């Protein structure tokens, strides 16, 4: 039984990460969660009062007739009706005003973060993947990756957003609210993650055919791990050591791959698709659509249009030998 459970657990797909506004892992997420519960309980109280009011009115009513509505012909009844309606309107406006104030306060709390020594990350939306850049004034210290954002815990992270085509929206429910990525317009926001872990993110603004397959993840790590990751990402691509992988690199450089992708340290330097210099260090491919396994990668390379119809990547016909060599090469890009 235990063995079976163990096998089942191993057969399960990769944990896609936390994806829930009610399980925040960051202070901004906690503010949003708090606001959610406050509004929930206010609405709940209003709902209960309404139902009680209706029940009481129904019990008091002597006739089954709904129409005509009661008309107060005497002065006193008219006054009472005016008071009742006025009070109800007043309570409604006051409640809505309280909710408005709470929303503004929460928004302010979530936006105002201490920004001493923040990590700056550039997120550029593409149809349908995320380009992640860790900018640096020195070009050789700049990291470019895709779909997986590594951040140190308890450190403010400033995200500069932009888009290359249409409006996308950056949303990690367990960390913070949504932020639209507008083409040709840079904006910035910040967040801090407190608990290490993997947080799933998703494009939250309909951006075309594969909007639903435009995921990403935020991987929060202790500062040491983050720096180690950074050092690894700064290196150029590993050179293949055996003939099989060397042939794979030739396949990459003589087929359609190099028209769109970059592998730093080789001739491939196009910026249309994700940077593949450290492809093997990522957990998922195709914007969190497939696990980064040789099989999934092979399927993706041969016919991406079956997995994500409309995606920019074109189908590739490779002979089995070339494909295996290419996969062997991509596996060494740690």
């Amino acid at each position, binding site marked *: 039984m235990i063995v079976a459970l163990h096998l089942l657990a191993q057969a399960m797909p990769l944990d896609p990460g936390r994806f829930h506004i009610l399980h925040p892992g960051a202070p901004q997420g906690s503010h949003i969660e708090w606001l959610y519960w406050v509004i929930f309980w206010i609405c709940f109280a209003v709902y209960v009062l309404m139902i009680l009011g209706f029940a009481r009115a129904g019990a008091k009513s002597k006739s089954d007739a709904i129409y005509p509505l009661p008309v107060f012909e005497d002065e006193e009844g008219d006054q009472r009706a005016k008071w009742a309606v006025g009070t109800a309107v007043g309570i409604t406006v006051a409640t809505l005003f309280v909710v408005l104030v709470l929303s503004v306060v929460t928004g302010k709390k979530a936006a105002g973060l201490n920004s001493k020594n923040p990590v700056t990350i550039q997120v550029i939306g593409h149809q349908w993947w995320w380009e992640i850049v860790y900018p640096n004034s020195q070009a050789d210290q700049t990291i470019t990756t895709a779909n997986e954002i590594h951040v140190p815990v308890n450190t403010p992270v400033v995200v500069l957003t932009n888009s290359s085509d249409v409006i996308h929206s950056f949303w990690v429910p367990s960390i913070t609210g949504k932020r639209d990525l507008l083409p040709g317009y840079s904006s910035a926001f910040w967040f801090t993650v407190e608990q290490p872990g993997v947080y799933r993110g998703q494009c939250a603004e309909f951006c075309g*055919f594969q909007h639903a397959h435009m995921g990403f993840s935020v991987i929060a790590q202790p500062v040491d791990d983050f720096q180690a990751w950074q050092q690894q990402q700064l290196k150029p691509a590993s050179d293949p050591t055996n003939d099989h992988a060397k042939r794979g690199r030739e396949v990459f450089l*003589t*087929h*359609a791959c*190099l*028209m*769109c992708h970059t592998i730093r340290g080789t001739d491939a330097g*196009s910026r*249309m698709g994700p940077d593949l210099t450290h492809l093997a260090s990522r957990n998922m491919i195709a914007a969190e659509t497939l696990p980064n396994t040789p099989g999934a990668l092979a399927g993706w390379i041969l*016919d991406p*249009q*079956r997995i994500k*119809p*409309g995606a920019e990547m*074109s*189908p*590739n*016909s490779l002979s089995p030998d070339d494909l295996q060599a290419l996969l062997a090469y991509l596996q060494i890009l740690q």
Partner: protein
Amino acid sequence: MRSHFQAAVMVAAFGMAALLLACSRENRILRQPPPADQTINTVQVSGLNPGANSIPTPPPSNLYQESAYAVSEGQKLYEQYNCVGCHAHGGGGIGPPLMDNNWIYGGEAGNVFTTIMQGRPNGMPSFRNRIPEYQAWEIAAYVRSMAGLLPKGVSPNRPDHMRVKPAESSTPPQSMTGITGSPEQHQ
């Protein structure tokens, strides 16, 4: 009177519904045929033809429609694959301009396709095996649209760069006598 009006409305509504049936979307082929089916090998590699009656093989005809979709995809690919690097946005530079109607190697879709796939002397590289065939056809459609060789209906509606003709919206309407103003008058 009222029932006549109602009947008229009903007939009109049914008529509109029937008209809707006649509408069909332009068919977009998102999943292109597998590359193994490509006709790449039929592209003529040399202009020399053996035999006395050397009739040159005609260039392959476009397997894909020169539709608005193909043109806008071609426009995107034209930038992404850095055609702009030499041909600019049609005005030329290192390479010849593409927005005029002078064609060194022919202006048919098949000619442009062959030029992209095989390359040409003095700089034009061959994109054979680099880009899939359907993308080359899309780029060819865009190149032809720049020279105004495609029907009006399929030109990309909002080109971001230089264009040969003024946009339709800035073209003066045809006057009653059938004389149109020249574009220069309206710039």
